[in-house]
């Protein structure tokens, strides 16, 4: 009988184990440490030790562990690194913010670490059961984090909406998975692909494909399964919103890529049209809805919907360039978007909510550095050179044009122009409008370091992208292409 567990398998999941240990430690420390803000440093230590273990594991021989439940490949490592960076930055944003909201609890950081552990299994899972359990661990932790501001009705509402819709979409996803299991007799993605390629596209395979995609589209917030996004993003604590828009979204994309490229890869001819329709409507509807928003959090929520549509373009192209573009886009998006959210977090202080576009009015005269930082993040989100966002969009467009999806490319290009309009609305408010209130805006140390790191990376990737492109190429080298 095949060996299902060997001691060296533990090494393959060492980063996840570290996160779990630190998460459990946080729950205990929460009872001992009187100054809860210190717990943020413990969470940072957890993230750092997971990152070190991840680095030490980079040349691990074992391709799979636990009898094929998880794989250790550059693709998984790349995403895990992205999650850890995003989490570290989120902790930096949270420490002061939670004080302001009066909800500084150790459980916040513990849930954050457990969520990242779930994400890592979504990136590394090679079996539907592992992928799904990872997804649920992340999702349940996120539902709670969204409702963390218990005294704010909006936060409660966001949490319950996200929970109900999330549970429903998980049901749809599981239905598709059960059909895939029925077809192949296995939960392993490779064996499912074998069974599907022997069978071809018949009604059962198509229904399985559609239901699995519907479930995954919900998780990445693609149209028509996007309605939860603005409400959940607006009601959640801003630091959690930042976390959701980068880490949760990237993890869902990692799982989506595994399922689409490996599991239902043989049905590529059938899912490309579906994906193209979803991507084009996602980009367009997300952008058009963003035009009319007056709340910065909602505006950025709709912007994140349209960015998810952009990422799908790479999967439609499906060639080597497309795969590189997908992971590179997600990596760059992590930093430029976290930076933008960082500025929004900083505006929340005392009894100022700081979420409306008017709250940005005259930010340049109140805190020039923050205003210039926000300007650069907005240019990057819109995709203007020499920022990182340009590099990301450039690769995506190159990929879809290479494979001849010109119609899709034209719609996407028009949308870049629409996006520019609403990102510039924020810039106009910051630089040209009269300040609606006096006094300068001070930043806490955590937010300042987050802004410095994200700003540096946004510019660095923009002017010197080679190293990051190589990283993305290594990560996608093992992925199947079409």
């Amino acid at each position, binding site marked *: 009988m095949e060996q299902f567990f060997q001691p060296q398998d533990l090494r393959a999941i060492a980063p996840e184990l570290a996160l779990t240990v630190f998460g459990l430690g946080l*729950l205990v420390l929460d009872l001992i440490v009187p100054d809860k803000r210190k717990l943020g440093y413990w969470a940072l230590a957890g993230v750092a030790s997971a990152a070190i273990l991840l680095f030490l594991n980079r040349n691990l021989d074992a391709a799979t562990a636990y009898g094929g439940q998880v794989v250790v490949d550059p693709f998984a490592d790349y995403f895990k690194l992205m999650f850890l960076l995003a989490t570290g930055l989120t902790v930096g944003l949270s420490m002061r913010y939670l004080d302001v909201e009066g909800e500084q609890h150790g459980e916040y950081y513990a849930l954050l670490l457990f969520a990242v*552990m*779930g994400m890592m299994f979504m990136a590394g899972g090679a079996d539907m059961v*592992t992928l799904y359990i990872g997804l649920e661990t992340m999702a349940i932790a996120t539902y*709670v984090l969204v409702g963390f501001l218990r*005294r704010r009705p909006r936060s409660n509402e966001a949490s319950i909406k996200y929970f109900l819709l999330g549970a429903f979409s998980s049901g749809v996803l599981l239905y598709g998975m059960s059909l895939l299991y029925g077809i192949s007799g296995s939960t392993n993605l490779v064996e499912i692909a074998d069974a599907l390629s022997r069978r071809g596209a*018949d*009604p059962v395979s198509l229904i399985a494909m559609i239901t699995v995609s519907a479930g995954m589209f919900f998780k990445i917030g693609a149209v028509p399964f996007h309605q939860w996004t603005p409400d959940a993003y607006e009601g959640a604590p801003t630091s959690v919103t930042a976390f959701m828009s980068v880490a949760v979204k990237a993890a869902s994309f990692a799982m989506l890529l595994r399922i689409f490229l490996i599991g239902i890869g043989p049905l590529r001819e059938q899912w490309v049209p579906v994906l193209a329709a979803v991507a084009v409507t996602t980009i367009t509807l997300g952008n058009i809805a963003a035009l009319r928003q007056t709340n910065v959090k909602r505006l950025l929520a709709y912007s994140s919907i349209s960015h998810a549509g952009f990422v799908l373009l790479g999967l439609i192209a499906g060639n080597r360039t497309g795969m590189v573009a997908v992971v590179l886009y997600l990596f760059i998006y992590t930093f430029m978007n976290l930076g933008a959210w960082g500025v929004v977090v900083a505006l929340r202080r005392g009894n100022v909510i700081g979420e409306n576009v008017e709250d940005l009015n005259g930010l340049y005269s109140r805190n020039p550095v923050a205003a210039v930082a926000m300007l650069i993040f907005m240019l990057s989100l819109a995709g203007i050179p020499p920022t990182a966002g340009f590099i990301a969009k450039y690769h995506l467009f190159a990929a879809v044009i290479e494979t001849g999806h010109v119609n899709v490319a034209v719609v996407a290009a028009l949308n870049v122009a629409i996006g520019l309009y609403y990102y510039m609305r924020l810039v106009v408010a910051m630089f040209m409008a009269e300040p609606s209130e006096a006094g300068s805006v001070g930043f806490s140390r955590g937010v300042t370091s987050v802004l410095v790191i994200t700003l540096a990376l946004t510019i660095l990737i923009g002017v010197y992208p080679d190293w990051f492109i190589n990283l993305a190429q290594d990560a996608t080298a093992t992925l199947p292409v079409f």
Partner: protein
Amino acid sequence: MLQLVIFYIFAAIAVVSAIMVITRRNAVHSAMFLAATLLSVAGVFLSLRAEFLAGVQVIVYVGGILVLFVFVIMLVPSDRVIFERRYNRQGRIALITAAVLIGELVYAVIQGRDAFVFPEETLEPAVEGNSQWVGTVLYQNYLLPFEIASILLLVAIIGAVVLSKKSKPGGEIAVEE
């Protein structure tokens, strides 16, 4: 043949009671129909010779979780809810969509029903004792997901505690500049 008849009887009861669970206004009635659904699913498990799953289904779901549901329903004043307007204004659209969806699913599954038939020799070897088999699969093939599930449950417990914990006395939002 007999097995098929038994399956259809249990399946029909399960589906009908599931519909009743979500259409009854009285929460206690819903809970009772939920019990019927869970018991008939246990029956389906039995007809598939998965005795262990059937037993767990009855003990955990019907015996444990459902009793808790009934307790909560009794503790919460639910009479008021019966007379409240419910948010189902889109009932007709939902009905049409659901009907179309069910039609598609039934069509697809009937068309491709041979997909679920496997040659005898590829099936897992039959073993004595269903609970042994469940244990073997759980602790060998699915050891890792099984362990992650324990963290998943821990997260759920923490979540429940965090969200239901009483706010600190005073409860006002700390104001600082």
